[in-house]
C-alpha cells in the first residue's frame, strides 16, 4: 500500500513538474501538453545512432529511472509513509544519487556522438565537485539528528527547521541539488546553447521519454530530500502531514525550476572553480559551526 501511494505521488508530482516546466519554456499554461508530448514521443521512431555502444545506450535511461525510484524509497512523506526507513537512509540516498552519474556517463558514451559524449563527461566533472556539496551538508544534518535515518532527521527538526539552524548547508545543498538534476542555470550536460542537447541529443522516441521521465523523478527526489533535510519534512500546523509534505516538495521543485530560469547559464570552468574553492570550504565551515552549536546549545 505504501509503495502504491509513494509511486502515485511520484507520478502526480512528476506531472506537476512537467506542466510547470512546459509553461516556463513555452510561455503558455496547458494541463495536457506533457501528456501529448509523452504520447508523441512514444509514437515517434526511436532512431539508433551509427555504431553505438548498444548496451550502454539501452541501459542508461532505465538505470536513471531505477535510481530515481530507489532514491524516492527513503524519503518520508508522513510518519509511517515511507517505503523503507533504513538506519542509513541519508547515506542510501547519496548512494542512489551517485548512480545518476553512472547513468549519464553511459548515456553520453553510448550513442557514439560528440555532443553526447562531452555532455556525459562534463556531468562527471561537475559531479565530482558537487557530490561533496551534497555529502557534506548531509553530514551536518545527520550530526544534529544523531542519526542517518531520514525519519529521525525530520523529527530532529521539531523545534527548529534546519534551514534556520544551518542556512549555509541549505544554500549549498540546493545549488548542488539543482546541479545534480541538471536544472538551469546548471544544465551544462544538456546545455541547449553549446551542446545542442548534450547526452540527450541522440535519444529519440520511447528511449527519450524514459530519460525525461527519469529526470522528472530526479528533480522531485532532490526537492523531497531538500524538504526532508532542511524544511522539516512533514512537520507543520493544522494540515495533515502528507499535505504538508506535498506542499513543501512541490513548492521547492517550483522554486528550483522558476528561480533557475531567471539566471544566465553558468560557464563550466567557473562553476567548477566556485564548487571546489568556495563550496567545499563553506561546507566544511558549516560542519564545524553545526558541531559547535550542537555541543553548546542543544535545540
Amino acid at each position, binding site marked *: 500500500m505504501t509503495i502504491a501511494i509513494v509511486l502515485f505521488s511520484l507520478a502526480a508530482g512528476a506531472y506537476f513538474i512537467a506542466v510547470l516546466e512546459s509553461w516556463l519554456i513555452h510561455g503558455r499554461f496547458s494541463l495536457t501538453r506533457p501528456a501529448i508530448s509523452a504520447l508523441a514521443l512514444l509514437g515517434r521512431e526511436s532512431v539508433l545512432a551509427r555504431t553505438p555502444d548498444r548496451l550502454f545506450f539501452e541501459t542508461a535511461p532505465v538505470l536513471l529511472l531505477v535510481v530515481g525510484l530507489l532514491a524516492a524509497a527513503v524519503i518520508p512523506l508522513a510518519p509511517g509513509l515511507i517505503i523503507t526507513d533504513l538506519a*542509513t537512509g541519508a547515506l542510501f540516498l547519496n548512494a542512489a544519487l551517485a548512480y545518476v552519474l553512472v547513468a549519464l556517463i*553511459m548515456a553520453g558514451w553510448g550513442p557514439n556522438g560528440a555532443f553526447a559524449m562531452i555532455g556525459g563527461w562534463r556531468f562527471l566533472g561537475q559531479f565530482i565537485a558537487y557530490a561533496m556539496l551534497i555529502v557534506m551538508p548531509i553530514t551536518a544534518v545527520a550530526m544534529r539528528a544523531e542519526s542517518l535515518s531520514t525519519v529521525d532527521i525530520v523529527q530532529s527538526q521539531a523545534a527548529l527547521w534546519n534551514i534556520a539552524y544551518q542556512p549555509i548547508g541549505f544554500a549549498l545543498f540546493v545549488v548542488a541539488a539543482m546541479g545534480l538534476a541538471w536544472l538551469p542555470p546548471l544544465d551544462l550536460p544538456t546545455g541547449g546553447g553549446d551542446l545542442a542537447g548534450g547526452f540527450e541529443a541522440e535519444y529519440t522516441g520511447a528511449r527519450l521519454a524514459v530519460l525525461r521521465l527519469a529526470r522528472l523523478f530526479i528533480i522531485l527526489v532532490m526537492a523531497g530530500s531538500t524538504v526532508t533535510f532542511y524544511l522539516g519534512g512533514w512537520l507543520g500546523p493544522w494540515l495533515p502531514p502528507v499535505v504538508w509534505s506535498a506542499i513543501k516538495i512541490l513548492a521547492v521543485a517550483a522554486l528550483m525550476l522558476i528561480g533557475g530560469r531567471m539566471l544566465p547559464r553558468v560557464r563550466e570552468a567557473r562553476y567548477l572553480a566556485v564548487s571546489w574553492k568556495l563550496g567545499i570550504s563553506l561546507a566544511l565551515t558549516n560542519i564545524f559551526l553545526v558541531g559547535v552549536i550542537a555541543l553548546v546549545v542543544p535545540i
Partner: protein
Amino acid sequence: MTGSFAQVFFLAFFGAAAVWFGIVVFRTHSMVRSAIALLFSQTAVGVMFLLMQAEFLGVLQIMMMATEMSVMAIFMVMFMMDPGGMGAMEMTHQKRLSLWAGGIGLVGALAVIWLAEWGPVALSVPAAADQTADLGRELLGRSMFIFQSAGLTILTAMVAATMVAIAPDEERRQ
C-alpha cells in the same frame, strides 16, 4: 543458521554476478565498458554486504564505487589511445605472470577461508545503527593510526597526481 533460503540464494546470485562482471572487465575491448563492468562488480559486492545485513558497509561500498570507477573511466579515456576499443585492444598483459599471481591468490584466499578459526557463529545481528557506531569506534579507536596514515597517503598521492597532470607555466603560455 539465521539466514533464510532467499538470503542464501541472492547472496550466491550476487556473488556470481560480482565474479562475472570481474571477468567482463578483461573480456571487453572498450576501456569505458571495462571500467563500468568493474563498477558493477563492486556494486554486486556491496549488495552482498546488504544481504549479510551489514547495512552501513553495503551502502558505503555502493556509493563510493560509483564515483571512484567513474573517475577511473575518465582517466582511462584521457590517457588511452583507444578508449572505445575500436581497434580490438587486448585488456590482459603479462599473461603467464598474471595467471600465476591469480592462481596463488585464489589458493591463498581459499586456504584462509578453510583453515582460519572463525569462532562461534553470531546468533543475532546488531541493529544497523549499532553496527555503524561499532564501526566508528573501531575506526577511531584501535585502527585510527592505520586509517589516518592511509588517508594522508592518498591525499599526498592525489596532490602529486594533480601536480604531474598540470602542464608547467611555460608550456601553457604557448
